């Protein structure tokens, strides 16, 4: 089966710091892949390059046969890659429903209406349906500025889902969520995402989450891929235990 995303020899340096060193990875459709690594290992840089925010120094990023390595975030989003952020990137003064409505408008971004009300029934219904999937229908009319960090995180993910992306990248979906809530939050995310995004890559520091929700784990260290395989194998790998998980499972 052809991979949804094929990355070959990706390099990225910031001065003397190597953020990506010959990163090569294929992501087949339908997989849930977890990216792990210590802070500064290159996980977020990888996500930023795949989504067009950063341009690689060299290497190729191919999405369904199209080279996207030099494209803008807007172009990459239109081609089918969406992402959420470590710190939710929302429109703080708008309500949750309005945030989703802007995302829905992005589907036909070149044809934004100058007269059709933003909260037209079809868009409003779609926004409520998406919020409902995350159990957030009751906050639809609350401004983001009034919502807690965990709720913002879920809205951030809901916005990334609107385009029914071929590939969904989640940057630390459970960061900022309490230990008691993390499985509940991740269950909600996986359940909500399932109808619209078959292929998911998520950056995660919590090895319990990685082990429980990842079909495959890719471990980064100093910009390189240290290990790539099934969670049980990668998490038991001696180098991964030494440089990434610190022996903790």
């Amino acid at each position, binding site marked *: 089966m052809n991979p949804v995303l094929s990355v070959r020899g990706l390099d990225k340096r910031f001065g003397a710091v190597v953020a990506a060193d010959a990163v090569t990875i294929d992501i087949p459709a339908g997989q849930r892949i977890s990216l792990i690594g210590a802070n500064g290992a290159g996980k977020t840089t990888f996500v930023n390059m795949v989504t067009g925010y950063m341009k690689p120094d060299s290497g190729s990023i191919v999405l369904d046969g199209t080279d996207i390595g030099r494209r803008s975030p807007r172009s990459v*989003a239109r081609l089918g890659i969406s992402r959420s952020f*470590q*710190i939710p990137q929302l429109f703080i*003064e708008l309500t949750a429903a309005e945030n989703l409505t802007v995302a829905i408008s992005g589907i036909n971004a070149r044809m934004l209406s100058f007269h059709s009300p933003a909260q037209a029934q079809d*868009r409003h219904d779609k926004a409520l349906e998406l919020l409902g999937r995350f159990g957030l229908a009751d906050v639809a009319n609350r401004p983001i500025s009034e919502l807690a960090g965990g709720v913002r995180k879920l809205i951030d993910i809901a916005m990334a889902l609107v385009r029914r992306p071929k590939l969904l990248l989640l940057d630390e979906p459970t*960061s900022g969520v309490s230990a008691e809530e993390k499985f509940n939050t991740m269950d909600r995310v996986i359940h909500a995402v399932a109808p619209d995004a078959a292929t998911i890559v998520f950056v995660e520091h919590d090895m319990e989450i990685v082990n429980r929700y990842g079909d495959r784990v890719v471990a980064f260290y100093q910009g390189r891929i240290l290990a790539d395989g099934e969670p049980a194998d990668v998490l038991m790998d001696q180098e991964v235990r030494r440089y990434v998980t610190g022996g903790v499972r």
Partner: protein
Amino acid sequence: MGKNLHPLVMIALVAVVTLFGRVLPTWTLSLATIAASNALIALGIVVLARTGNVSFGQGLFFAAGGYGVALIANAWGLTDAVAQVIIGAVCGGLLGLVIGPLIARYSGIFFGMLTLALSMVFYGALVKSTALGGSDGFNVGRPSLFGMSFVDPREADFMLYAVSVIVTGFAGIAASILFRSEFGLASLAVRENNLRVEYLGISANRIISINFVIAAIFAGASGAFALMAQRHIDPQFAYWTTSGEFVFVAVLAGNQSVAAVFVASMALELVRSFSNLYLPNTWQLVLGVFLLSVILFLPRGIGSLWIRDRHSRKGTAVGAPAAPEKGAAL
């Protein structure tokens, strides 16, 4: 957002205000014409400000509209008020179409200073241009309407008042529809977080450019009104203090209500006229105190008197408290 009036109600309001001009004293008509003209250009600044960018150089488009109309009027004898407004809007819009996409990539103070710089370059060119009358400018004839000439000064003033109120009123209706639209919401999103807008597949630059062109069209039409009211044009139209006055009106109004722009513009003109009349030596002081008072007591503008502020909505945080988040991903 507060409750919005239905467009038909707004059209009725425009009609009432237009007819009200029949009973207004003559001196009020010219004052209201200037206020409507200033409101139109300030409305454009508010439209643009909804993307998070403030233009300090709307005098550029104001002058472009005024000079465009004046040159055509003198060259071809075109005096029709409606045609002049359309020509002014087209001149402003065309210039906006050239400049908008170029400066849309800048934001904040850089955006503001670039607009200011461009208007001052235009001002400098106008002052040096002998063909356009240099710093003295030149005169144009009295405007007509649909072939009718107005010899009686009161009738001429009422005609100009009526055209300015109707045009500005319809611009206001169009702006209020725009603010509520899909495009209007996307404009607010650009102001909040333009990077996320891009990640949603929407071009933030395109949204800023379109709003910029709308603001330029309003400014050009406003320049045409100013020309018709004064029957004279000079480089002062493009000067930075002229642009500053329009920004004052926009600041006074806030960006939450279209009606607030008209109220703010009229209030500013009234305060300016009366303080000039009764305190001729200290009228600037009165104007300054008025501006400071509005900024101090209504920091979100006059519109916040009747539009419920997003920030004022009280409520406790929803959901479980979150741990402090780590450094920015981007």
